[in-house]
C-alpha cells in the first residue's frame, strides 16, 4: 500500500520522558511526525498520543512494532478512516480590516465556526470538524489574510468498544 496519511493511537504510561522516547522512534526511522496530540485519558496514569505521519504500510508496521518494544508503551493501534471517528480543532487568527471584515464574519456564520475573541480588530476563530471540513474553512479564509493557525492535529477514536 502506498504512502498516505496514517493515524496512530499510542497509549503510554504518563511518565516524564515517554514522549521523548516515542518521538525518538519516529526520528530514528527518518520520518516526520506531521502532528501530535497528547493528553491524559480517563485514567490519569495513562496518556494517549495521537500522531500523524505520512508513510506506507511497511513503515507503519515497523514503527508500530518498535513502539511496542518501549517499556512505557501499553498499546499501539492504527486508526483507519472507515473504522474511527476523526476530528480536528483549529484556531485561526485574522487581523480584520475594512476589506475583509464582512466576508470573515459571513464565513464564520456559513461554516458554523465560533469567534473566540476579538481585540483591536484581531479575531481568533475556532473551527472544529472533520479534517475535510477544517481544510475547507482554511482554504476559504486564506484570501482574507490568515495571520496564524494553531491545530490540534487529528484526534481519533474507534467507533466501537474494543
Amino acid at each position, binding site marked *: 500500500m502506498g504512502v498516505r496519511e496514517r493515524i496512530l493511537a499510542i497509549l503510554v504510561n504518563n511518565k516524564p520522558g515517554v514522549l521523548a522516547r516515542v518521538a525518538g522512534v519516529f526520528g530514528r526511522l527518518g520520518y516526520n511526525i506531521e502532528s501530535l496530540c497528547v493528553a491524559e485519558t480517563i485514567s490519569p496514569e495513562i496518556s494517549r498520543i495521537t500522531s500523524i505521519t505520512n508513510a506506507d504500510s511497511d513503515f507503519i508496521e515497523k514503527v508500530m512494532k518498535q513502539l511496542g*518494544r518501549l517499556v512505557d508503551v501499553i498499546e499501539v493501534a492504527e486508526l483507519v478512516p472507515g473504522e474511527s471517528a476523526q476530528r480536528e480543532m483549529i484556531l485561526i487568527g485574522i487581523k480584520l480590516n475594512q476589506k475583509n471584515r464582512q466576508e470573515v464574519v459571513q464565513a464564520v456564520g456559513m461554516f458554523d465556526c465560533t469567534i473566540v475573541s476579538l481585540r483591536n480588530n484581531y479575531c481568533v476563530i475556532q473551527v472544529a470538524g472533520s479534517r475535510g471540513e477544517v481544510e475547507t474553512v482554511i482554504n476559504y479564509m486564506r484570501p482574507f489574510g490568515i495571520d496564524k493557525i494553531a491545530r490540534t492535529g487529528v484526534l481519533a477514536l474507534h467507533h466501537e468498544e474494543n
Partner: protein
Amino acid sequence: MDTTGADILIKTLKDEEVDTIFGYPGANSLPIHDSMLKSQIRHYLVRHEQAAAHAADGYARATGKVGVCLATSGPGATNLVTGIATAYMDSTPLIVLTGQVTTNLLGSDAFQETDIIGITMPITKHSYLVSDPCDIGSTLKEAFEIARSGRPGPVLVDLPRDIMAAKCNLSDTKDVPSRVKPRSAGTRDDAQLQKIAAYLNRAERPVLLIGGGVKLAKACDDLAGLVEKGNIPFVSTMMGIGSVSASNGYNLGFIGTHGNELANRIVHDSDFILTIGARFSDRSTSIVSEFAPLATIAQIDIDASSIGKVIKADLSLVCDIREALEGLIPLVEKKERKEWMERIKRERAARNQNGAMDECGAAGPFIRDVQAAMPEATTMVTDVGLNQIWALRSWQAKAPRSVITPGGLGTMGFSLPAAMGVQVGAPDRAVVAFSGDGGFFMNIQELVTVTCYQIPIKIVVFNNGHLGMIRQIQDLFYGSRFCDIELGTSKVDLVAIAKGFGLDADRVPVGDAGAGIEKMAASTGPFLLEVIVDPDNYVYPIIPPGKSNIDMISGRQG
C-alpha cells in the same frame, strides 16, 4: 530504621544477587561507593568508564547474569556510551548506574552534568531518573526485570547525589507495581508450531539458522535436540556461534559478509529456513532481495519487532525460544533427505581438502594451536576486524558461552575489558582475548586493572602495524589507495609495554609461534603474546559491498 538512598540501592543490588560491579568513582557517585564499602559487593576499579561497561557486558555474556557497571555524572557517564551501545546491539542484560548532580542543579549546566538519559535514550531498553530515596528499591527491581526479560538489554538508572545521601525510613519504601509486561506476552501458538513443523517435515533442503537469541533464551540444549531429532543441518549468524558445539556433525559454519562460504551457499540453495533467535542483520543477509531466493522462511523470536523487519517471514512466531522448541520438537520427524545430506557431506569434504584454514592465512593454524594448548574449558573473546574473523573461523566453539564477540556494534577495544569481565565472572575457566594492534590500544589502560587484580587473562595481539580489515577493504575495493591505516604499532615494543604494566609477555612470528604459545598457556598470571603478522594476511572469502551472500571473493594465491 533510617537508611540512605545509597544504602537501599546496595541492599537492592544484593537482593538481586549482584556480587560484582565494574566502575570508576567521581564526586557525584561517592555516596554509592561509601555504602558499597560496607557490603559484600566486590567493586572492580577500571581505568576508563568505557572499560567498566565492556567488562560488565563480558561478565553478563559469560555468566548469563545481569552485568552491573557504575560511573559518575558528566564525563564519567558519557564515557560509558560506547559500551552501552555495544550491549544494546547484542541484547546483553546490563544495569548502568550513573551518579548525577544534585536535583536542584538539574538542567542548569552544572559542573559534570550531562543529560545521560537523553544521550542514551536510543541505546537503552529503558532508563530512570530517581527523585526520591524511597523509590530506589522498587525502581531498581523493575530495572533488573526489564534488563533480563523478553529481549534483554541495558537499563540506565541515573542517581542524583542528594537522593543517594538522603534518608528514607525503610517502612516508607514503596512497592510500586511493576510496569514490566508479563513474559508470556508472546505465547506459544501450537497451531503455528504445527504449520512450521509441517513445512519442516516436507522440506527437501531445510536448514536451521541460529542467532544470538538461542543463548539468551538458555535454549541451547533444546536446539541441539531439534537438530538431532530432525536430522537437520544448521548454520549460525555471528552471534549464534557456539549455541550448538562447533564440532557437531550438522554444523556448517556461519553466514554473512565474513561467513563461511559453505554456509552461505547452503542457505542460498535451501528450500526451507527455520530461523531461531536471529534478526537478519545486514551483515548476515547482505542483499535482502537475493537472500535465500528459493526458501520459505520461518522465524521464531521473542521480539516482535525483529520479525519481518528485514526479511519477510512466511511463517512467524513471537515466543520465548525455549517454550517454542519444547512445543516444536515433538512435532518434528526425522527425515533422511538423502540427496541433501549427501551433497552437504561432499561439499564439506571438498572444502576441508582445500584447507578451509588457508582463508585466514597463517592466522588460522596459529589460532588452532592456541586452542590446542589452552585447557578445554577456555572462553575466547574477540575484538573487531581481521582478528575477529580469523578467531571466529578458526576457534572451535565447544560451549554456548565460550565465544564472545561484539557482533552488533563492532566495537574496537572491546576484547581486553570484556575479557576481564569474563574472567571475573567465570574464574574456573581460562580466558583468551584476541585483538589486533588497533583495538588493543583503544583500552590499553586496562592493563593496569589486569595487573592490580591479577586477572589471569591471556591477551593475544595480532600486530600487523595497520588497521587490517580496513586495509583489506581499501586494497580490494578502493583500488589499493591506502590511507589513514598505518598505526605505527610495528615501531612500538608491545612486549616492553606489557612488561611495563606488570604483565608477563612474549613476541612471536605467526608462522613460528610454538614456544610463545606454550609459555602463554603455562603462565599462571596475566600474559600478553604479541604475534607479528604480515599486513597482506587477509581473510577470505569476503563479500564486496553491494553484493549478495553468494558473490564471495575468494583468496588470492600467496
